[in-house]
């Protein structure tokens, strides 16, 4: 199958003023599109791999042939991470649900979680992502470089923040902490909650 750029469930200006229209436009239509194009190009010679979803590829990077391994890791990762990112963004979604209870339990309150997550995202040196993942049923904050996905190491992301400079430079320039603070206003907690419940169920089943 050919990978395609997913449509956003909202307009480019829907996250204003926290994430600006121009950033959303370029981020989705240029950066994400480039990952999709480069992933398709990398898979051209491998019809077998074309049958796998991007997420399957990223979960099973070890099976990807050496000559396209980095291209799939980078661009497949870019595709999966951005698709995920668009889904966990929404303005005005109240922070509630079982995931919030689990966060409070795990981190000793929402404020402590926010601090830990923000610190991980701010401290990631260079391009990368900050994550809240479920690992064997437990919540964990982590970060990855470039477009590496927690899925590759068997962890399930339920919240993620893109800290590549392209995600915030037009509005926040060098002030990454301000962008991270703003991000907390546009988290789609309903989606995060459903991802949490799904991951929790999967870990019980396993």
């Amino acid at each position: 199958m050919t990978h395609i750029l997913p449509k956003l469930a909202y307009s480019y200006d829907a996250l204003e003023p926290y994430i600006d229209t121009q950033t959303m436009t370029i981020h989705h239509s240029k950066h994400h599109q480039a990952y999709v194009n480069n992933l398709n190009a990398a898979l051209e010679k491998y019809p077998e791999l074309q049958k796998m979803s991007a997420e399957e590829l990223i979960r099973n990077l070890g099976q990807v042939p050496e000559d396209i391994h980095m291209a799939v890791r980078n661009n497949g990762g870019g595709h999966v991470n951005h698709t995920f990112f668009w889904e966990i963004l929404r303005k005005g979604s109240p922070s509630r649900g079982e995931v919030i209870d689990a966060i409070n339990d795990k981190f000793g309150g929402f404020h402590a979680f926010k601090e830990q997550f923000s610190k991980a995202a701010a401290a990631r040196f260079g391009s990368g992502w900050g994550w809240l993942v479920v690992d064997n049923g437990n919540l964990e904050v982590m970060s990855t470089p470039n477009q590496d996905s927690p899925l590759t190491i068997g962890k399930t992301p339920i919240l993620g923040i893109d800290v590549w400079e392209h995600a915030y430079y037009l509005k926040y320039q060098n002030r990454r902490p301000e962008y991270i603070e703003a991000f907390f206003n546009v988290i789609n907690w309903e989606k995060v909650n459903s991802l949490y419940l799904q991951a929790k169920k999967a870990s019980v089943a396993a």
Partner: protein
Amino acid sequence: MEHKLPDLPYPKDALAPLISAETIDYHYGKHHQAYVNNVNKLIVGTEYANMALEDIIRKAGGDIFNNAAQVFNHTFYWNCLKPGGGGQPSGGLEAALEESFGGVETFKEVFIKTAVIWFGSGWVWLIQKSSGGLDILAGPNACCPVAEGYRPLLTCDVWEHAYYIDYRNARPKYVEAFWSLINWDFVQKNLG
């Protein structure tokens, strides 16, 4: 010892329109300055407190390495550029490029391609090895040839902050602009 932000070798609007004054304002005034501030803060009370920057780069790891190397890299980068730069390498540099790459044009192609496809934040360098031969070194984040025992000759910053204000996602356009601003006299001077 306290590390200082060096003066820019030209006014901040001197590279416009290829690299705008606004980009320099942030890149030099905020990013480069922050690396200087960070390294000064991080070395307090450590074995690196009285070390020269290049020694820190050779010996440190983690945050201290990252910030020290970024101070060095950015200072070097500013010197690689000049208003009205560009043109062609000549003399000993031209001969060295010919010997190592088979010609200036081939070197240019490889360097530009490396800078365009480098994934994520990083640096692309022209370096000289102890054998005297030249090579291209590309690496993530604070990649610095000093740490690897190479002599740096030329560098291109491919962090998005180097070009996002002027070129957005169009890194190839930035690299092309970078190329036309190279201060080849500086590169030549670095040759051992």
